[in-house]
């Protein structure tokens, strides 16, 4: 579903991702863990086309995302092409990024109406459905400022889903939340995993959740996948020293 092939990302002299290869199967749930600065966010941002890549190609559903075919070769994608391929991907951010001047409902209908061209009534029906699913059926007319962090993040999830993406990206979506609100957001994600046929990539520090929810865990270290495998293996019997160190540090803190 998603394939990173030799992807490199640099900021000036700093190589943030170094020749990354990663294959994600349809409906696979991949948890991305690793120390701060190891490039986890960058992976998601490149997939969401928020960052340009310096080398390599990203494929989504067999189509090159970052490049387009031209005269039999691949050239860097232009804005128009990006718009045509980006629709398969949805993203939920650490800091929600809801539109503060729009109601909860409008947050979830803005893109379906303007991008997918849905009639307003149909877009609203669908948005209400999704908002009910994440337990916010009674907040349709509220503005984001009046919501708790957990509620905001659930709106953000519904907003992304309203575009019917095939791939959902979650970047530390519970990191900005008070501890007692983490559960409701994780529950919403759990429920989506069951209800929709989604491929998911999630950067998370919730090791318990990663262990139970993910099909595969990738441990990032200095811009590379240092170790990867099924959650039982990574969490119970990590092979490499960096992974062991990271996990024991996280367990200590948590």
């Amino acid at each position, binding site marked *: 579903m998603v394939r990173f092939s030799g992807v490199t990302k640099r900021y000036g002299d700093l190589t943030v991702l170094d020749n990354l290869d990663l294959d994600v199967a349809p409906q696979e749930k991949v948890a991305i863990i690793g120390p701060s600065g190891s490039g986890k966010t960058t992976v998601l941002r490149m997939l969401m086309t*928020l960052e340009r890549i310096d080398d390599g190609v990203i494929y989504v559903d067999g189509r090159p995302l970052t490049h387009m075919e031209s005269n039999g070769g691949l050239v860097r994608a232009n804005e128009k092409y990006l718009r045509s391929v*980006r629709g398969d991907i949805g993203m939920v*951010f650490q800091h929600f*990024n809801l539109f503060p001047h729009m109601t909860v409902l409008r947050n979830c209908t803005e893109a379906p109406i303007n*991008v997918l061209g849905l009639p307003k009534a149909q877009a609203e029906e669908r948005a209400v459905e999704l908002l009910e699913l994440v337990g916010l059926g009674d907040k349709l007319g509220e503005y984001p400022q*009046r919501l708790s962090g957990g509620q905001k993040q659930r709106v953000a999830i519904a907003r992304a889903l309203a575009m019917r993406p095939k791939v959902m990206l979650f970047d530390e979506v519970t990191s900005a939340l008070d501890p007692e609100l983490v559960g409701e957001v994780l529950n919403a994600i759990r429920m989506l995993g069951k209800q929709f046929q989604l491929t998911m990539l999630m950067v998370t520090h919730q090791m318990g959740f990663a262990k139970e929810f993910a099909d595969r865990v990738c441990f990032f270290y200095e811009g590379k996948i240092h170790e990867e495998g099924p959650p039982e293996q990574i969490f119970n019997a990590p092979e490499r020293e960096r992974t062991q160190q990271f996990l024991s540090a996280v367990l200590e803190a948590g």
Partner: protein
Amino acid sequence: MFWDWEYAFEVLPVLAGASIITIQATVLGFILALVLGLIFAIMRMSRNRAISGATTAVVEFIRSTPLLIQIFFIYFVLPEFGIVLDAFLAGTLALGIHYATYCSEVYRAGIEAIPRGQWEAATALNLSPTTTFRDIIIPQAIPPVVPALGNYLVALFKETPLLSAIAVLELMQTAKILGSQNFRYIEPITLVGGFFLIFSLIASAANRYAERRLSTIGKR
């Protein structure tokens, strides 16, 4: 007697009539400034270097040359290129274009204050650039800068006497004519000053009110 009340009351209705022209020039000029300013601001942010560079150059040029010269240019020079405008239109156009460059700076500050996350969310939802500006950026960028725009409204209003230089029959020009006809300038000129004072005070009060209202809306 230093101040002639009778004469003052005689010229007052004439000046009141001329104030309509002043207000028309202010309102039309400012509407043009608001619209054109936004266009300038957006063009300056264009990813196309040629567009943003050219817009920046034009804006800087207009901002750094005197309004009076621009008024003269539009009124006296453009006809040489076959563009003939009457004095009121030429003056209002010059006011609007000149203040558009100030407004564009204000808009730009408003737009730049929008957190990056808003743009990124718009991209993640695949919104087009047009929709992003129209529905996400502009509605958030403008309310905080309304007071700054309001200040430029007052400033533009106070510069309308420059239109007397091309004989637009606004307040100042009318006062000058009255003065020269009657050989008394004190009353008409003072009344014009008083008129500007009153309207500026009203506009400033309205601006402060808008500012307060906006800050309460912002807290919803």
